[in-house]
């Protein structure tokens, strides 16, 4: 029984920690994947002004991609996506709507953004030569009354980069281009589904009159959120001489950082509560087990075992039992955790009808358990189990014979 309590307790602890940590990481990941990624490189001043005219020259983009190919960086980075952002008007035969244009390279964007995974009709853009594809949100598709394959015309003002001798403030004439709806996505975020369209990067550049491969920003997705400051620092050093700003997601999406603080505090409390509950269960069973063996200890002493030896025997037994239980618990916990790490826990099964139909966050929770956490959990449970058996062990060792034998 004791072994069961110990083992199960540890397993529960590991699984819960894994899921909570995983949930936390995922909230970050989802948040940054709808935005500029874990780390973003953009023209200096872009964060403050959000001016579409502030662009990154192509050579900086190459510097970045080359640098990220170096072995040190390569293993930390999951995706690199250069993007061109602008505003325009998208028209169909039925209606028109103002849109936010994202010019992307589909293969790269797939590794960073969540939009490619939220397609509900058609397919996402592909890296073929077809430059006339566009993907848009279902709210927008409904408004424009378009379906897969429909014609739409995108109109925008050619960007006048600040360093070219501009004409007067009136700007250039409008440029238009024909596009066909390749795919429709639904993220659940109204701001995205009603406003954002993605087209091929070269198509966007042509439309905006950009001749030399400039983009607005480069978004990076990392394997582990925790590497963000490291990668940002390395890039800053690499690009020290250039007029760029390299931001971690905490700086580029401060709102998300704040949400995460809340989530972190929340998890903190949850971890505490779970640990306490597991602890209680373990303490209960161990305490009882040890206390109930007073008779047995009494017999040992009657037979001639010295108090010191008895104490050692008890402790030794306890250690052995604890170790085995923990090993079993570890095995059980890690295998369950591994399942959740690869297949995830589908929250929909858990909450049945409770969740609303259009969920923003991914309803599948993936476990993310760090070695740190494992060591910490095993350590704490081990300590709890051992310490709690010390007291009665010593007490038992000192019991007078007659008392001990009176148990019966």
């Amino acid at each position, binding site marked *: *029984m004791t072994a069961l309590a110990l083992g199960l307790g540890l397993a529960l602890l590991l699984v819960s920690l894994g899921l909570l940590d995983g949930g936390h990481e995922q909230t970050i990941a989802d948040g940054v994947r709808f935005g500029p990624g874990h780390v973003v490189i953009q023209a200096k001043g872009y964060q403050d002004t959000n001016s579409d005219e502030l662009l990154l020259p192509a050579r900086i983009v190459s510097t970045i991609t080359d640098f990220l190919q170096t072995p040190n960086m390569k293993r930390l980075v999951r995706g690199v996506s250069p993007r061109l952002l602008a505003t325009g008007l998208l028209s169909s035969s039925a209606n028109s709507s103002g849109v936010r244009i994202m010019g992307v390279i589909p293969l790269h964007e797939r590794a960073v953004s969540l939009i490619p995974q939220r397609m509900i009709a058609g397919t996402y853009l592909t890296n073929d030569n077809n430059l006339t594809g566009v993907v848009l949100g279902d709210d927008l598709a409904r408004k424009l009354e378009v379906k897969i394959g429909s014609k739409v015309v995108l109109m925008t003002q050619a960007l006048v980069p600040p360093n070219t001798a501009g004409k007067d403030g009136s700007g250039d004439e409008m440029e238009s281009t024909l596009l066909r709806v390749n795919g429709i996505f639904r993220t659940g975020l109204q701001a995205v589904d009603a406003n954002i369209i993605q087209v091929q990067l070269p198509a966007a550049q042509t439309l905006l009159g950009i001749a030399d491969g400039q983009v607005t920003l480069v978004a990076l997705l990392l394997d582990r959120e925790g590497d963000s400051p490291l990668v940002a620092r390395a890039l800053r050093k690499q690009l020290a001489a250039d007029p760029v700003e390299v931001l971690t997601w905490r700086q580029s999406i401060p709102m998300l950082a704040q*949400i995460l*603080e809340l*989530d972190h505090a929340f998890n*903190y409390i949850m971890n505490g509560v779970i640990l306490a509950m*597991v602890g*209680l269960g373990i303490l209960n069973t161990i305490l*009882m087990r040890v206390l109930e063996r007073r008779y047995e200890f009494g017999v040992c002493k009657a037979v001639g075992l010295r108090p010191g030896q008895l104490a050692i025997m008890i402790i030794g037994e306890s250690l052995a039992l604890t170790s085995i239980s923990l090993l079993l618990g570890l095995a059980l916990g890690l295998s369950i955790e591994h399942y959740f790490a690869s297949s995830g826990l589908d929250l929909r099964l858990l909450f049945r009808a*409770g969740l609303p139909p259009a969920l923003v966050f991914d309803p599948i929770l993936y476990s993310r358990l760090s070695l740190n956490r494992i060591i910490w959990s095993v350590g704490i449970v081990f300590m709890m189990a051992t310490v709690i058996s010390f007291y009665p062990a010593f007490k038992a060792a000192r019991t007078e014979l007659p008392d001990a034998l009176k148990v019966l």
Partner: protein
Amino acid sequence: MSGRLLQLAWRNLWRNRRRTLITMTAIAFGYAMLLFVACLMAGLRWQMIENGTSLVMSQIQVHAPGYYPDHSIQKTLGGRKGTDVQAMLAVVASDRRVYAATPRVYGYGLLSAAPRSAGVELMGVVPTQHPKVTILNSEITQGKYLTAGVPKDVVLGDKLASTIGMRLGSEVVLLTPAADGSMGNDVYTLVGIFHTGLDTVDRSLVLMTLPALQDLLHLAPARIHEIGIKLNDITAATTVAATLGSQLSKTVPVRAMAWPELAPELAGYVQFNRGITFVLFSIFFLMAVIGVMNTMLMAVFERTRELGMLMALGMRPAQVIMLIMAEAAGLAVASLLVGAALGVPILWYLQVHGLNLGGAAGGVISLAGVVVGHLWYGRQDFLAYSEAAIGLAITALVSALYPAWRAAHFRPTEAIRKV
């Protein structure tokens, strides 16, 4: 189940005081923790809903059918003719669950403060009544709120002010498509700037007095788009909305929408929150099963001889089972009572003083479109408390099944001989 059996069960529990106390303490503490968690989560839910709805939305919105979600200016309550606004407000206010109600008018247009301009959402409110339903007036960081009878004042968000480059006292031109198709326009003065922490609100919402917006939109005074309602009990929103909807529909066709419909993201988070609580409860029950089963098994095996003797003397197996179950039940009930006693001061503290996370989370944050502070207050969730108690009792009974079954299967002759 005879009274004597129950008495016996109770006495049996206390024969091994130490064991019973240990188990009881564990369960009691566990229950107290569940109470703590339930209270905190309930508080968090309440706070989120309160914050999410009190800022701009309000907990219930009453519109003309078809107004939502397109927000067509023409679709005022009561159609083109409008309606008796005061009468409608009176009907709403007569429901005791309603704290306050206020009329609102909406529009959209262009705000121009030379040389820049931006697209904005316009909201016309009654300055004396609106603060009862939303807390927007308390988010003002510079200047002042609107004043009734001063139609040319506007209040807007800090992000909008900085993007356009406006300051208090700046002149602002509003341009909007009016209800009659013409170009409504007028000049206003910026008197207050607010900061809500919500990007969309700070960037695009412009507040003005209701009559002023009706003027701008060429809408007659009887034409409003919405009645915003604040309730005494947030959790009753959906039921109150249904009641009000049918009541008001007797005179004017309406659609009353409660906040879960208006803010599905928020509703989603609330459900998620409930789910987490459920998971925590389950973890506890799982540990409790082990604890109780362990205790009962020991209790049973320790009394092998005694139980054997009882059965030899004529106690039927069924009665033995009931005896063991009764012991488990007694253990559970006693533990729950102790746990509840432990929990009361914790719950009280949470509700009155709250949990200060100042260190862990700095400042004010926005979650699921809602602003949450770092001081978490608890709220009593008696339903959850009862669910936890019942769950625990059931767990105890279920855990005792195996030991009880084993006890019932002792062979009296062997049992008696056991030392």
